[in-house]
């Protein structure tokens, strides 16, 4: 707290570069970023998907955003230094121009210097993609890039200086909603296809949202935002009223989603539900008890392999029981393995715990992969032919049916988590997380409490593994990599440590969104990374922080 005061006063004291120099600096940095974006091949890859059908591809939107942000930041700096708005906008245009110039240079170098031998992505395809109606490599293209850069920078600058705060917020929100609606065309299109009269085709083209619906949507969002602000309604986030309404909306969406969308979306939703299960498990360990666990995937594996062995028809089957028998066995085994692993590991603290659990996760993966255990666990061949669960005589086969299975489990786990959090043990976890010595001196048994956290978390992961096994119908060692543990960890951090709704939001954002953007290939991880870094700056407490975190941030 006092520390914060110090840093913020530092910020004020720090000498700022003169606005013009700063604009140039920002412009060049943004320009280099834009060029990099193109040269790693992201532009061409992202160009395949339209945000607004036939008008703006996702790649174009990303480039435009770079110029806009450069303009916005430059103008904001100029504004702080007391420059007139006109000058600020001009400087912003300059920053945008720098971005355009960098891109123009890149196009020139690509067409004339043959840099392709070094930079594979500096291809004719890239130059073609950047023509926007002009001829590739022509002076027209160069001029267009420069002009567009200047224009976008100036618009960004105008947004920062000339547009009043309320309108600016409304516009930014409108733009984001349109991008969201265009980018996740598949989801919304499949929802809209339930409506009669071909509404779906009226709104969406084959690659993105159509122009007029996009404009209408933008206008509607802007109007609604302004009207709401004018009506004097305090922002929901501030009143905390958000929680109730958003939870209702969230639950409703979650319940009907697979029914009104495509199988593909249902499948993604299923994956999200699976990660939610794991997320809630790690939330008990890390979010509540403060135990860093990088070997979380081990328990996921225990659950999956248990169900695989018990429900498979393949050569490795040890019993051919129904999923409903195998599920509790998997959960109990995972919990027990949590206890067994926990005993030696939980006496270490902090960073060492992270390393110890990391090792544990790898041990389990190596074990299931090993030749020695291959006669039992199948080694790299895995276990196949796992029966689908049968409910009332019906085999659960479709993604939607399996989604509901995962969802019901997630609901049960959420309820248990919530009860535990508010029980005696929940308070013990909190105390241990805050100060282990003091917790002991207040009569809390740290080893026992941590063991409970560890094995409950493991049980939840085991449940997730069980569902995973029947969902895929087979298990292979490569499904149990360190990356799974890291993903679950990232979900918690993004959603907000210790927060149950945060787990849901985190899983949707980190698992759902990238899955829906599959066609962008590896480049979606670029956004994943950008999103993570941006989050840590803008909302370090997470998207839906726990009550205690919120309180702490509020008085910091």
């Amino acid at each position, binding site marked *: 707290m006092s520390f914060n005061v110090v840093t913020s006063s530092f910020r004020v004291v720090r000498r700022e570069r003169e606005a013009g120099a700063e604009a140039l600096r920002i412009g060049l940095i943004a320009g280099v970023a834009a060029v990099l974006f193109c040269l790693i091949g992201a532009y061409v890859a992202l160009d395949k998907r339209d945000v607004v059908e036939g008008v703006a591809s996702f790649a174009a939107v990303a480039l435009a955003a770079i110029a806009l942000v450069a303009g916005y930041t430059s103008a904001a700096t100029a504004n702080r230094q007391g420059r007139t708005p006109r000058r600020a906008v001009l400087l912003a245009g300059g920053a945008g121009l720098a971005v355009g110039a960098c891109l123009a240079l890149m196009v020139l170098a690509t067409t004339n210097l043959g840099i392709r031998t070094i930079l594979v992505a500096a291809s004719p395809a890239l130059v073609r993609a950047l023509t926007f109606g002009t001829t590739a490599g022509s002076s027209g293209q160069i001029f267009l890039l420069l002009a567009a850069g200047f224009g976008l920078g100036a618009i960004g600058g105008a947004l920062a200086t000339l547009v009043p705060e309320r309108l600016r917020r409304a516009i930014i929100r409108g733009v984001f909603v349109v991008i969201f609606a265009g980018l996740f065309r598949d989801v919304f299109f499949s929802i809209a296809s339930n409506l009669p009269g071909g509404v779906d085709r009226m709104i969406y083209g084959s690659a993105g949202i159509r122009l007029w619906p996009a404009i209408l949507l933008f206008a509607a969002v802007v109007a609604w935002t302004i009207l709401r602000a004018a009506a004097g309604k305090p922002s929901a986030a501030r009143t905390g009223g958000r929680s109730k309404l958003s939870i209702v909306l969230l639950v409703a969406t979650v319940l009907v989603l697979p029914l009104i969308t495509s199988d593909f979306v249902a499948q993604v939703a299923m994956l999200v539900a699976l990660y939610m299960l794991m997320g809630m498990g790690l939330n008990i360990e890390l979010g509540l008890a403060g135990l860093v666990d990088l070997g979380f995937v081990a328990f996921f594996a225990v659950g999956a392999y248990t169900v695989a062995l018990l429900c498979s028809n393949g050569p490795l089957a040890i019993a051919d029981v129904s999923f409903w028998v195998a599920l509790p066995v998997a959960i109990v085994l995972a919990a027990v393995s949590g206890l067994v692993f926990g005993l030696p590991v939980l006496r270490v603290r902090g960073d060492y715990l992270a390393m110890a659990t990391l090792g544990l996760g790898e041990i389990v993966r190596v074990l299931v992969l090993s030749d020695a255990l291959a006669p039992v666990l199948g080694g790299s061949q895995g276990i196949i032919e796992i029966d689908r669960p049968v409910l009332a005589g019906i085999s659960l086969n479709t993604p939607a049916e399996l989604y509901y299975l995962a969802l019901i489990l997630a609901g049960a786990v959420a309820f248990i988590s919530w009860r535990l959090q508010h029980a*005696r043990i929940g308070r013990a976890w909190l105390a241990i997380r805050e100060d282990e010595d003091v917790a002991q001196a207040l009569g809390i048994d740290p080893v026992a409490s941590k063991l409970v956290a560890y094995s409950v978390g493991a049980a939840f992961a085991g449940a997730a593994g069980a569902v995973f096994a029947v969902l895929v119908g087979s298990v292979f060692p490569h499904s149990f990599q360190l990356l799974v543990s890291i993903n679950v960890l990232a979900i918690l951090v993004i959603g907000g440590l210790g927060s149950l709704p945060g787990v849901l939001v985190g899983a949707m954002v980190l698992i759902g969104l990238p899955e829906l953007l599959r066609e962008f290939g590896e480049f979606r991880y670029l956004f994943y990374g950008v999103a993570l870094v941006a989050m840590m700056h803008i909302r370090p407490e997470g998207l839906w922080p726990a009550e205690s975190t919120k309180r702490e941030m509020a008085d910091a």
Partner: protein
Amino acid sequence: MRTLDVRDLTVAYGAISAVRSASFTAAAGKITAVVGANGAGKTTVLNAISGLRDVRAGRIDMDGQDIGALPPHERVRAGIAQVPEGRRLFGRMTVAENLEIGAFVRQDRAKVRQDIERILVLFPRLKERYRQLAGTLSGGEQQMVAMGRAMMADPSVLLLDEPTMGLAPQIVDLVLEAVQAINAQGVTVLLVEQNAYRALEIADQAFVLETGEVTLSGSGEELLSHPRVRSAYLGHDA
């Protein structure tokens, strides 16, 4: 009322002994003060009693029962509570939550409610701050919460580690009066203090710790007038 009896206590950090064969008694229902310079081993002694620090040798008895083998959380059930050096509240919890978690070992809900009331009577200031985050309290208020939290375990022996550290004189009075009030309820108090004069004033018994050894002991008054104490800890010429 319980007597705390420490015999030949030795505590070491690696090769260095921070406490060497220290013996003393905190008599039942009395205030016993521990005086000593920085690094003399006062905190180490308290941590050994509460179990946060493993001991190398010695016995710690409560009413003749050896509690030296119990883990810290069970010593709380045996009746020992500690107010740690530097308060160490749960800063992200409210005053109310800090007090409630102090009663972790207790099952008697109704009695716990009553005890919270008693603490709010002892420290009326906490009533206004009841829903405030502990981390945002002033130093004096934090000390009150720390003492309240320890008292919520309903201890028979209270270990206090420099409760007046960094507090203004009026607040020091308030805190030490509270210590006497707690003691008057029948709680045995072991009080570590830098502020030797104030501690000896309210102490029934006291001893001096120097580089881990008990070098002097007697009643509070005796030590107050002892020339070595006067020169070393009270700033008077001998």
